[in-house]
């Protein structure tokens, strides 16, 4: 079972920590972290802080998704657009988007727009690249099928190109969502005064390690849940796909 390995590791960690084989100060027992999580959601601000991060993620993803898919499709279908834009994409894509934060704060000031936009750019480039890949790697015979069977222009796009690229678009959205979360937690760690990333930072500063690990755990769980969610949507929408691999 896929749960066996982490379970064993957690138990080992618990034992080592309780018997001070590893420093309980730096590696508090998982049960302690568990109680911090329960308390934090019940009485503390873990719920609020999670919501702050989720809201930023929502705005970032929404900002990135539509333009990203559109640009990717356009680049895939119009050679001149691709030739004009591709160098910039190739240039910016490998740059960790957190390094855009100083630049964005200079323009927008320190605040939500700069934070959200950092997350959005992170998702945007991934979505563009995946979508473009989806159009470029489509079976060229399907285009011939479309043309031979009378689908031209807009009809060819809606009936052939877009459906063919859809699996890659979904992959791009999923990866983009994950990257946006990464960037946002980093932004919160460095610059924001709220959110899960900020919690990690604050508790690290105060060496309150159980709280720090609790925030970690929520970030991880969020990433897992959101990616799984998008995958479920994909399985719903693309029933025709042979198989949608498990995460």
């Amino acid at each position, binding site marked *: 079972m896929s749960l066996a390995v982490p379970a064993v590791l957690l138990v080992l960690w618990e034992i080592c920590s309780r018997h001070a084989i590893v420093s309980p100060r730096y590696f508090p027992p998982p049960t302690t972290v568990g109680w911090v999580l329960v308390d934090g959601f019940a009485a503390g601000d873990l719920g609020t802080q999670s919501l702050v991060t989720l809201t930023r993620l929502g705005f970032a993803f929404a900002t990135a998704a539509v333009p990203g898919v559109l640009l990717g499709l356009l680049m895939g279908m119009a050679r001149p657009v691709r030739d004009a834009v591709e160098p910039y994409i190739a240039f910016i894509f490998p740059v960790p988007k957190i390094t855009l934060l100083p630049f964005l704060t200079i323009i927008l000031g320190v605040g939500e727009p700069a934070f959200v936009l950092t997350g959005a750019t992170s998702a945007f480039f991934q979505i563009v690249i995946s979508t473009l890949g989806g159009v470029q790697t489509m079976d060229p015979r399907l285009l*011939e099928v479309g043309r031979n069977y*009378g689908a031209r222009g807009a009809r060819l796009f809606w009936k052939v190109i877009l459906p063919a690229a859809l699996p890659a678009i979904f992959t791009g959205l999923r990866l983009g969502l994950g990257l946006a979360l990464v960037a946002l937690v980093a932004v919160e760690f460095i610059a924001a005064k709220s959110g899960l990333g900020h919690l990690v930072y604050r508790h690290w500063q105060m060496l309150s390690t159980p709280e720090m690990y609790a925030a970690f755990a929520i970030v991880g769980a969020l990433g897992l849940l959101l990616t799984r969610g998008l995958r479920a949507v994909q399985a719903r929408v693309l029933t025709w796909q042979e198989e949608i691999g498990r995460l």
Partner: protein
Amino acid sequence: MPTRAPKVLVNEVSVTFESHGRSVVALDRISLQAHAGEFLCIVGPSGSGKSTLLRVLAGLLPQSAGDVRIEADRPGTPLTAMVFQEHALLPWRTVRDNVTFGLENRGVGRAEREARAREMLAMVGLTRFAQHYPHQLSGGMKQRVGIARALANDPEVLLMDEPLAALDAQTRTIMQEELLRIWATLGKTVVYVTHSLEEALLLGDRIVLLTARPGRVSQVYSVDLGRPRGLEVRGSPAYGVLLEKIWSQLREEVVRAMAEDRGGEPA
């Protein structure tokens, strides 16, 4: 018997591909005709331009020189419908929606589309699979959907590019018989590309043999083996004579093609 009215006219057609700064002549001044209702088979070594010829006929590829004409006697119907090698079904459409794809693009109403799909799926024996997706079908079934899709579009000329090449021997034999039956029912003009001389002799009214690259017409053979034709034709002496005659010519071309691909002299 096919009537003598010409349906497909290919006149001195050449196709040259430019790739990586080199130009490849795929077709070199090809001329041929298919009569209305004729089953015309094209055979030739790999790379002799058979698929290229079909794509020119389908209007998917412009010829570099020469002209192609397809006589349209029924306005409003498409000139061609292609059965692609390895089916090329749209994976996001059900079997039925693949079959109605061409009709949908022409604005045929839903009721009529579905009636036509039912009819064609019955003809290829896939009625029960109308709501399946392509990935749920076997190779032979996908190929039959490809054929039903082309038939449903009711073209002036049916173009088939090695439609049975990917099938196992048993399925292929059954499909050949089905094709004969369907063709006899519908009386369509068919241009049919195949690697198999046996298949061409079983199906065709005439066989056009192309030379190794660049593709030219080497010989045109009439297949005077009578109709309706079934598998038993393989036992007839005339069949053996014709097969031998075409094969000796084709063999020369294939050896030449292989030698050229190796970049050496003919063996």
